[in-house]
């Protein structure tokens, strides 16, 4: 097989896999949430209610795709596309198994950070283009929250990059042969996980769409497929963040017996379930608490982690 054909196949496999995983995960989330809250959840359609997602998709396809007359039309249409494009693009650098990676960039980690920082536009522009007060408030919250947590997200990864000596994800996985980075880089892992929840604005840090104060936040005015794009973008974002945590802190595809791809998927799914567990367990913090926590706890922790990692590496190298 030629190189082009090989990369085309990889791209479509990754896209199909990620979208199916993200779409199917909506069902997993609803069943898991129901389990945590001692109720049944969707269990009627198909085995274990698996077809509920299909039914929801059909419903959302049939819905009227409405653009409010007071909205800024081009930007209103652009916003939901952006979140899908940025989250799907970050899938390109993730190494699922040896050789199974779309683009093994030597700036892989930076590419992920760049895409997640471009994702901010989606929520910000959705909030602005909707031209309604709840959407605007949600959009402004989203910008402040995501911009702040991006800082800690980047800083928390630098410890890993220093230990691996490379931004390339396959190198980082290779550097974890003897010891997964979740042990020496525990503070980095904690900061990155919290920042990941904030970046994908998942509950409990879903202040941009806090439904009991902002209706639905930045996507209040969206319906039909555009709304579905936001929803799916959020789930793909969650998949990407989980996959990044697996790659950077939990040894990537490494594991005994099972094939590498299976290990990668198992680890990623476990982390995604952790996201849902968080959602079921924690109340939403107040907005100022979120910002204070970020700048007064996460920033010092990630800076300390960076300094200590650097010092240890220097001493060891000397």
């Amino acid at each position: 097989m030629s190189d082009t054909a090989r990369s085309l196949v990889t791209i479509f496999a990754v896209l199909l896999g990620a979208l199916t995983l993200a779409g199917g995960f909506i069902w997993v989330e609803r069943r898991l949430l129901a389990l945590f809250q001692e109720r049944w959840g969707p269990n009627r359609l198909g085995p274990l209610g698996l077809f509920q997602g299909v039914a929801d998709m059909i419903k959302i396809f049939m819905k009227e795709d409405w653009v409010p007359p007071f909205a800024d039309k081009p930007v209103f249409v652009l916003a939901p596309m952006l979140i899908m494009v940025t989250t799907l693009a970050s899938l390109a650098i993730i190494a699922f198994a040896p050789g199974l990676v779309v683009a093994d960039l030597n700036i892989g980690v930076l590419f992920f950070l760049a895409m997640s920082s471009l994702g901010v536009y989606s929520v910000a522009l959705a909030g602005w283009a909707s031209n309604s007060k709840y959407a605007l408030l949600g959009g402004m919250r989203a910008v402040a929250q995501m911009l702040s947590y991006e800082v800690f997200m980047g800083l928390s990864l630098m410890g890993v990059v220093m230990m691996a000596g490379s931004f390339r994800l396959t190198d980082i996985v290779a550097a974890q042969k003897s010891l997964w980075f979740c042990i020496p880089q525990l503070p980095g892992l904690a900061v990155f996980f919290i920042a990941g929840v904030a970046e994908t604005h998942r509950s409990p840090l879903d202040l941009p769409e806090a439904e009991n104060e902002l209706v639905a936040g930045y996507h209040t005015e969206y319906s039909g497929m555009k709304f579905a794009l936001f929803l799916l973008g959020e789930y793909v974002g969650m998949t990407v963040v989980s996959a990044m945590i697996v790659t950077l802190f939990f040894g990537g595809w490494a594991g005994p017996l099972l094939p590498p791809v299976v290990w990668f998927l198992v680890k990623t799914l476990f982390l995604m379930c952790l996201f849902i567990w968080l959602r079921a367990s924690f109340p939403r913090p107040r907005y100022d608490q979120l910002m204070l926590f970020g700048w007064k706890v996460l920033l010092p922790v990630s800076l300390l982690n960076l300094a200590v990692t650097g010092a240890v590496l220097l001493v060891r190298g000397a």
Partner: protein
Amino acid sequence: METVFDISAVVAVVATLMVIAQSRAVHALLYLTVSLLAVAVVFFTLGAPFVAALEVIIYAGAIMVLFVFVIMMLNLGAEAARQERRWLTPADWFGPAILGAILLAEMVWVLASPQSAFPAPAANDPRAVGAALFGPYVLVADLAALVLLAGLVGAYHFGRRSAEAGEGEAP
């Protein structure tokens, strides 16, 4: 790679023109973002992937988002766009157009002269950029940090004043 360079260079120029020609502030900002992304691709094709990534993270992903944030807070309506359109009369294009034409002519002349061939793009990895930044250019990096510190102190000053003037609520 050369075709990619040409395409993204054209995109950058056209997008930058659109920044000036737009009457709605947010649309202009979006074009500016597109222009920055195109410049990032240009950097990438020139063999500087690290700079390209930083261009996206810092300029497109942080600074421009802050611009959008400010515009959102101002919440300019259709009235502002109308006013902007009144200010952008064809006569105003005259001066900048001449200056731009001079620069364009210069660039074409430089590019057309044979001795100005581009240096062969050598890939610069992040390690080399970091070593250069903290080696020969450490003074410049420190000076830039000082400028940022001044900005930080200034922002803190303004933030404090407005917090004290507020309705007695703890900041």
